[in-house]
């Protein structure tokens, strides 16, 4: 693995709301994030990625997952990812409007690596995206893109 590889790996954003999606794209753009942003518009699309990874597409650097999604609920997506041989090792950050204790507890119980509440204040949202980029795309050491057998 080369040190430049993480910069080219994608971030998978699972988000159904077009406004949130657009704001997130713009916020990431303002933070000069170079990683490509892949988007799943609902839970079912998020699950479609499992087959692509099985087929050899590189794993994303991090998944940003909303909880309230059409078709398949975000927590269900989380469980299915964690049950999948390749996706189980991908860092998942829950990015949602909900600050309910119940949602936080379930997300961590089902294997989320982080839980971030989307702030209404756009300035704070910009801070959040900057922090996500700094931490998950630069500081954090992700597992290999193809999750090859470590042995």
């Amino acid at each position: 693995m080369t040190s430049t590889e993480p910069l080219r790996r994608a971030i998978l954003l699972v988000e159904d709301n077009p406004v949130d999606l657009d704001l997130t794209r713009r916020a990431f753009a303002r933070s000069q994030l170079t990683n490509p942003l892949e988007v799943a518009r609902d839970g079912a699309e998020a699950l479609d990625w499992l087959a692509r990874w099985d087929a050899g597409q590189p794993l994303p650097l991090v998944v940003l997952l909303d909880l309230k999604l059409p078709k398949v609920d975000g927590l269900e997506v989380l469980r299915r990812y964690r049950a999948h041989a390749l996706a189980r090792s991908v860092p998942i950050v829950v990015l949602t409007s909900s600050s309910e204790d119940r949602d936080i507890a379930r997300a961590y119980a089902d294997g989320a690596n982080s839980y971030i509440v989307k702030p209404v204040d756009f300035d704070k949202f910009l801070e959040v995206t900057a922090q996500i980029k700094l931490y998950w795309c630069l500081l954090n050491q992700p597992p290999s893109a193809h999750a090859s057998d470590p042995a």
Partner: protein
Amino acid sequence: MIPAPIPADEAQRLQALARCALLDTAAEPLYDELTALAAALCEAPVAAITLVDRHRQWFKSRVGVPVSETPREHSACAHTMLGDGPMVCEDLLQDVRFHGNPMIGPDQHRFYAGVPLRLASGERLGALCVLDHRPRRLEPAQLERLELLGRHVSRLLDQRVAEMRQAELLRESLRRTQIQVDRVDESRRLLETAEEARLALTELLAAQQRLEEELREREQHFRTLADQGSALIWTAGLDMGCDYFNQPWLDFTGRTLAQERGSGWTQGLHDEDLERVVRVYRTAFAERRRFSTEGRLRARDGQHRWIRCDGSPRHDSQGQFLGFIGYCCDISEAKETEFRMRRFSAELERRVAARTADLAAVNRELATFTYTVSHDLKAPLRGIDGYSRLLELGHGERLDESARELVASIRLGVLQMNLLIHDLLAYCHLEQRQVRAHPLDLLGLVRCLLEARRLEGLGSRAEIRLEVDGREADERTPPVWVVADADGLQMVLRNLIDNALKFSELSMPPRVCVRLGLDPGQSGCVILSVHDNGIGFDMKYHDRIFEIFQRLERAEAYPGTGVGLAIVRKAMQRMGGRVWAQSTPGEGAVFHLELPR
């Protein structure tokens, strides 16, 4: 030395000697006078009346003899006793029978003369003898008189035997008399006992008669009691069969005692109650325990009526189980009321259940609603704020001053809306979530909140003070324990402290004091008060300020959602505490919390 031979009738002789009962008795003048006479007549210094016992000769009377007895083998009298006439030894030393006899010697007895003593029945008992310390002879007249004295002594012995015999007979006779006397005594005692028994019996009979009379009276009393009033009364014996029904029972069923007796009464029970009532009755009998049951009994008019029956075991005065007694009463009317009540109550329960189900559905809807609010209401807000901000960031230089103000106003509206959503969610959560009350340190909680406010830079101009029991709290102040839900209490305190800071913001300087202490009253609760020197409020609005969406001040002066104090009151209600306030306009306000310990 040749001791005298033992005579052939020795056993009989010893028995006769015993009958005399003279051996070892005290000296008697009657014998002593004869002995003295013998000594005088024979001019002898020694004389004795000798009785020959099994192993000794014993002197009943003696003159010149220092001892009371000597061994039989040394006895000369034992020889004399065997002969029919007198025995005279003029020199004992010359007689071979006494050679070596320690009683006989030059300085002891040398002369002996004795005559046998024998009873009329023939037994020889001993001898009357005289002795001298020198050899000599007796004159024929002296010997004759000695024999005469010997016969005299023999007769005395006969007399003695006869006296003894008579004494014996007398004793026997006395004994028999005593026995008879005893028998007579016993008879008399028996007679006395019999008399006592007769008296006792008479008394007993009288008592029994009195008892029987009393019993008859009581029976009469009982029947009067039992037959008065409306209670149906029955009794049953050990065999579970009923043996008595009072008149009201018979009047009720319209049947005769003969028809109802035994298990006849069960014929009147309703078919649907028969098995159950009989089971209750049998079980109570088997366990000898009180029972109470209800059932329908056919009345005189053929209609069944509801009867309540209370039965109890009955016992005699010794505690012996006798059977049961029961009291029944007609409860048809009460039963009818009960049925109506039950139908009513069932209907009521059905309605309550329906309402509860409706309410649960509404609650579920509300939960879904709040969840939706938290997600979906915030998304467009984020959009509005996001695009407003992007407008400022990307196109700010192309906007004039008034346009920039408009954008700022949009963002302020969003902020306000966001706060309102936040408070509404908090209020709804209070309704829904479980209150988990635990002991917690109120002082520590207040300190944390004040510290958090300080870090956020809120109320930086304010003088904030924390007091416990009237003294400023420091590191040594012990914890103040209350029982409360930590999240709920935090929400309450945050709202009160924020309010105090907000409404005293323009005071010079703002002063906020949080006071903790035990209720001076008897409640045993902890009272927490938040004092401020802010604008205060008119007490006529006291109740309104705790209602949701109620505001006393314009939003531009004191921003807020109008939900904060409603949250405080709701949370205190849920935790079993209280909140109230005191204020005068312009002079600050105090908000009090009462918390259980």
